[in-house]
């Protein structure tokens, strides 16, 4: 080898080392490809109004609007339902534009979105509606929001979605009041707002204004196989104490009583713990937690709830290895009969459709409470999820409002129930549709709650409390943290956020 060749090789290596090294660091922020679960993190809801007892009651209280008789069969395209004349075009839309809608297409697919686009074009002849169903909403739309040319309407869910509340704080969301007061598309004599299930849209209300809408109606609880349950002759526990007794029986039978979505502890943190707290201490402790109050987490009812949840681990009622499983792995183990109960929302049935044994018959049960609890013992977490919003800086925000009005119509909800076997938060939206047993059991559970809806917001308002809360809850459920440590960790983080001047604070009083 020649001398200068060698030299050049070494020089080259040196340069390569330096540039390679820095490239590794520099490209990190641009790195992509995460794998968070597809189950969208449904935003918890908050109460602003006392929810109406039932759909029927809501029908009765609304004063009918006069112009009911005039209906207009929509133009050429042949809309499959009729629309009242005064409900055809409340936003006085220009029809020579192309509406740009970008949506997350996940477990629900994008059929209901394409459907909405088609109907919208039929209602407003001449209009073009571009519907894009995508994955990874965040990386795709973030540059458009920063550049100031966002789409006209957005469905923001799934892995790597955008921080909705962050966008809201940055003034990127349009106030939806005009839509809420517009006439409903296909329920004559009702405003759009009156056709939605009470309580399902409360978490989208900020400072009195509806800022985003939830497209899916989600009921949370404990899932089990009705077949196995009846075969063993168990009775469903009403209180947590009874639950622990039942767990002891199940364990004696050689099956693990519980499992949960191990690597995603938020299933327990967002959808089990709040109900326990509510049934034990009523709404007050949850409101204190949301408002980041100084001693919120050390409230006796919260301490009791945390200790009760911890008892599952402490007494060995959780399936071995749960902490190392993803949501699908834990759910699969549960379907195989290795564990008896699993907490989840009512997307579970659709999510596990392909692996569910024929005779399994999954149904949902309430999270048990307390015989002497202050909260309503029928309370359920039944909330909206999958947020949709209209960007304030989009080219055609009025068209965005119209898209949401058509998407959350009764006919659209019916199509959704039939084709996606899921529920939109539209009153009587599942009328005449075939619903699976599991879905039906979750709707029944929501109706027994009779308006006692459990809600909490801290995870939606403060993303850090959500992320770190998961870390702490994972530690609690593996015995790394004792209940007292968990409570202290949550409290000190809440205190830190309360003191942080860079974080916008929200409060609620009901």
């Amino acid at each position, binding site marked *: *080898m020649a*001398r200068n*060749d060698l*030299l050049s*090789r*070494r*020089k*080259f*290596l*040196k*340069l*390569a*080392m*330096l540039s390679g*090294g820095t490239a*590794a*660091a*520099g490209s*990190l*922020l*641009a*790195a992509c*490809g*995460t*794998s*968070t679960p597809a189950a969208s993190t449904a935003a918890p809801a908050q109460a602003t109004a006392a929810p109406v007892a039932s759909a029927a009651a809501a029908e009765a209280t609304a004063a009918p609007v006069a112009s009911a008789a005039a209906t207009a069969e929509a133009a050429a395209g042949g809309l499959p339902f009729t629309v009242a004349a005064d409900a055809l075009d409340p936003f006085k839309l220009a029809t020579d534009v192309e509406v740009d809608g970008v949506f997350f297409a996940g477990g629900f697919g994008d059929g209901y979105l394409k459907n909405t686009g088609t109907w919208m074009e039929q209602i407003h002849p001449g209009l073009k509606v571009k519907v894009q169903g995508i994955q990874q909403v965040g*990386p795709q739309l*973030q540059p458009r*929001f*920063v*550049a*100031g040319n966002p789409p006209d309407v957005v469905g923001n869910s799934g892995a790597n979605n*955008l*921080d909705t509340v962050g*966008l809201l704080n*940055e*003034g*990127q969301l349009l106030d939806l009041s005009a839509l809420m007061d517009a006439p409903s598309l296909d329920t004559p004599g009702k405003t759009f707002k009156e056709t939605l299930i009470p309580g399902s849209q409360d978490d989208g209300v900020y400072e009195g204004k509806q800022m985003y809408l939830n497209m899916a109606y989600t009921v949370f609880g404990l899932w089990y196989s009705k077949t196995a349950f009846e075969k063993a002759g168990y009775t469903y526990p009403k209180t947590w104490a009874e639950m622990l007794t039942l767990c002891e029986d199940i364990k004696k039978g050689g099956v693990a009583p519980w499992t949960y979505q*191990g*690597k*995603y502890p938020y299933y327990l943190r967002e959808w089990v713990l709040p109900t326990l707290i509510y049934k034990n201490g009523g709404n007050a402790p949850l409101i204190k937690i949301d408002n980041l109050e100084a001693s919120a987490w050390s409230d006796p009812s919260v301490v009791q709830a945390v200790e009760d949840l911890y008892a599952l681990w402490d007494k060995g009622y959780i*399936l*071995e*290895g*749960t*902490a*190392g*499983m*993803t949501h699908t*792995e834990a759910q699969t*183990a549960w379907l195989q009969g290795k564990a008896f109960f699993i907490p989840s929302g009512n997307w579970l049935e659709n999510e596990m459709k392909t692996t569910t044994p024929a005779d399994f018959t999954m149904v949902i049960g309430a999270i048990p409470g307390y015989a002497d609890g202050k909260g309503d013992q029928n309370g359920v977490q039944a909330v909206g999820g999958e947020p949709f919003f209209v960007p304030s800086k989009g080219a055609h925000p009025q068209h965005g409002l119209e898209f949401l009005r058509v998407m959350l119509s009764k006919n659209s909800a019916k199509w959704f129930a039939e084709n996606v076997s899921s529920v939109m938060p539209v009153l009587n939206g599942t009328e005449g549709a075939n619903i699976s047993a599991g879905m039906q059991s979750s709707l029944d559970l929501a109706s027994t709650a009779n308006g006692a809806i459990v809600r909490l917001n801290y995870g939606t308002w403060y*993303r*850090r409390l959500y*992320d770190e809360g998961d*870390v702490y809850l*994972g*530690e609690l459920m*593996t015995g*790394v943290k004792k209940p007292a440590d968990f409570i202290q960790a949550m409290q000190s983080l809440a205190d830190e956020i309360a003191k942080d001047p*860079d974080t916008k604070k929200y409060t609620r009083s009901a």
Partner: protein
Amino acid sequence: MSQRRFCGILNTAISLPKAPRGGRMNQGKRGLIVSFLAVPLLLYGVFVLVPYIAAMVFAFTKWRGLSANISFNGINNFIKLSNDSNFLNALSHNGVALIVLPVCIVGLALFFAFLFTQGIRFARFFRITFFFPQVMSTVVVAVLWSFIFHPTIGLINGTATALGISGLKGFPWLGNASTVFPAVLAVTIWQAVGFYMVMFVAGMQNIPTSYYEAAKIDGATPWVLFWQITVPLLWDTLRTAIIFLAAGAMDLFALVNVMTNGSGGPSRGADVLSTYMYQTAFTRSEFGYASAMGLVLLLIVLGISLVSMRLTARDSLEF
């Protein structure tokens, strides 16, 4: 920079054979080189350097990355960073990787390279087998190993149970704060060893056998052969491997992210700087703060590269 000087630098960088001075041929050659390099350099500038500089600016802002509202807040991000226990936790994991990865990977790769150049049977088969993980995408590797580490259906616990080690039944390797990072490191080592082994094998095959023969005649043991002949003559290659691995230890994004499902593991037991930075930027929308982390990481990687280059510098031997 004058064109003349620039070409001078180019010349040394790519070590052109010295052409006769002032000839027209030479002028033409320089022009050719510059024109060839112009486009890549322009692309590099636009797509690499500009984002770097932008990120350095963002590091001093309160930008959330959700709108065009960017407000400067001085060195607040860096003050926040110095008190951020999650950041220090992630940094400590990178520190562990910085020690463990070069030592284990270079050690094992050297061992196997030496083994498979000694004319043992099936050497070719082993070389190919060992190199194979390098061909697979990191994400695929991470998913495969997540299954191997699976608490109930995983290969590891299954094998252990079959061998009668009952303590590992249902043990969650990736669901336990103290085992999740070792698991990630083990996969990193498994994936990288083959590549460096092939690199070292190539280097070893370049060493003239006459050196070994001469040493053997002088009565050298295999041990002496290895340390006195192989390692010194491989030094340039070894050094490159060490520096690449040191820089790689500051990354680990893909494996950690996939094996912990984006969470950094239980109790953030496997969180590294890159994953914590990603989470800060993309799930918490704190772009300014994440950029500050990026800047710190950049300085750390530069520092490590320079230090390791200094430490491993030796006169290379000619042969």
